[in-house]
């Protein structure tokens, strides 16, 4: 499903590369943790997978698409099949919660009753149905994070990239979100979760864990 081959990412003005010679594969339907301390390169790696950035060298493949060679028109189509929970949420501040979640369906042409039902069902899963009409910029940190989770899940993507999906959540809500991801995985999706929280790794029992440190991979022992 996902393949990185000798990926190195250098940012201009930075002495050390954010990613150095990273190679790994993620099988379809796999559940993978990307663990590592602050600044290890987790977010940078995920960004490469949805074409928000490109590696300095090496190749990144998602599904059958080589992201380095993807034409500008095909990138949106790829992104619709990849759900992303952004570390900084990336909600549309002036839009209400419903529309923020619906956005992921609308860009793919979704509408009608089925759209309303799916959005509401997903909001119920993150316990935000009562806030459907609230503007995103009036939400608390944890509420925003759950909206971000709902938006990533609502389109039932084949690949889910979650960047620190529980960083702003209390233990209860955090557990609930991790359970959602696990259910999602059980229904056939490939899931990658970037986190600095060892607690999460413990929660999701047998999943494979990749350890990043200073941009280098240290496969789980």
């Amino acid at each position, binding site marked *: 499903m996902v393949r990185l081959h000798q990926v190195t990412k250098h940012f201009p003005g930075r002495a050390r590369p954010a990613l150095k010679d990273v190679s790994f594969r993620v099988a379809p339907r796999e559940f993978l943790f990307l663990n590592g301390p602050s600044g290890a390169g987790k977010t940078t790696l995920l960004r490469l997978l949805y074409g928000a*950035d490109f590696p300095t060298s090496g190749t990144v493949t998602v599904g059958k698409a080589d992201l380095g060679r993807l034409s500008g*028109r095909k990138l*949106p189509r790829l992104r619709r099949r990849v759900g992303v929970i952004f570390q900084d949420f990336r909600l*549309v501040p002036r839009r209400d919660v*419903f529309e923020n979640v619906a956005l992921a369906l*609308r860009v793919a042409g979704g509408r009608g009753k089925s*759209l309303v039902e799916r959005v509401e069902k997903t909001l119920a899963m993150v316990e935000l149905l009562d806030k459907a009409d609230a503007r995103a910029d009036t939400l608390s940190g944890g509420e925003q994070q759950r909206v971000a989770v709902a938006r990533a899940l609502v389109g039932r993507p084949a690949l889910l990239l979650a960047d620190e999906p529980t960083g702003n959540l209390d233990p209860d809500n955090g557990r609930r979100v991790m359970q959602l991801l696990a259910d999602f995985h059980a229904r056939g999706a490939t899931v990658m979760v970037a986190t600095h929280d060892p607690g999460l790794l413990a929660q999701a029992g047998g999943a494979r864990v990749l350890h990043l440190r200073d941009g280098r991979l240290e496969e789980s022992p």
Partner: protein
Amino acid sequence: MSRRGARQGALYRAVRQMRENPWLTSVAVSTLTVALAIVGAYLTLVLNLDTAGRRLTTGAALMVVLHDDVSPSDGASLAREIIHWPQVVRARFVSRGEALARFRRQLGPHAGLLDGLGANPLPNAVEVELTPGIDGTETVVPRLAKLVQVAEVVTSRPWLNRLEQAMTVMGRLALAVGGLLFLGVVLLSTNTVRLAVYLRRDELEIMDLVGASTDYVRVPFVLEALLQALLAAGLASLLLWALLGLLGAPAELPLGVRLSEILRLPPQVPVVLAGVGALAGVLGGMLGVGRVLRNQVRR
């Protein structure tokens, strides 16, 4: 809820984002209105002065001097003939006696000097007035000159030539100034729209990140810019029309041009404004969105 299931086409989204950012919309529309009103005022003046000028240099009177042997009745019938020519509005026979009386009036205080004249030195003539907007030099004047009864066709050419030359210079100048003004206003409007798009770059980025096609992102912004530009063009036309109504005192300028004729909104103006506005809006929208989306990838 019902609205939530609806399609939310580009136009719907364009209107929604205008309503979500009323301050931004009002800043953009007011800026565009002022910019377009300036172009409109310029166009109004140039078009109306051109019309006035054209009337001055073309709707002029010709003095057709007849041979001495042409009788007054022949002259009168010649006038009746000429009046049926297509380019001619009026043609009147003026006898030498009538001409002398008029000359006397024209001399005013110095009229006394005509008292000593033995015989009337003036000729019989036909005064011809051409249709306003028609330049008779090329067609009417040669045709008149060829008539057997005609000794000479006196036009106000020497004076008109100077005026026309001046108008050509002014016309070229007006064209240059107009071109620059046009470019300037397109730049102004484009900049405004680009700023407004840039202000919402976060929103554009998010749509891009969740898989919206470039067109899905771009079209509402371009439409929004277009709507604002058309709204501004309408407002600018209204503003101009109201202003011209206020300023259009019935004063008379030299050369018989009436001020109220200059201060009238030519019907082309709203159309041109809408065109300029639309062009600027589309340009600004495309450039603005393009810039944001390009930047987004580079971060």
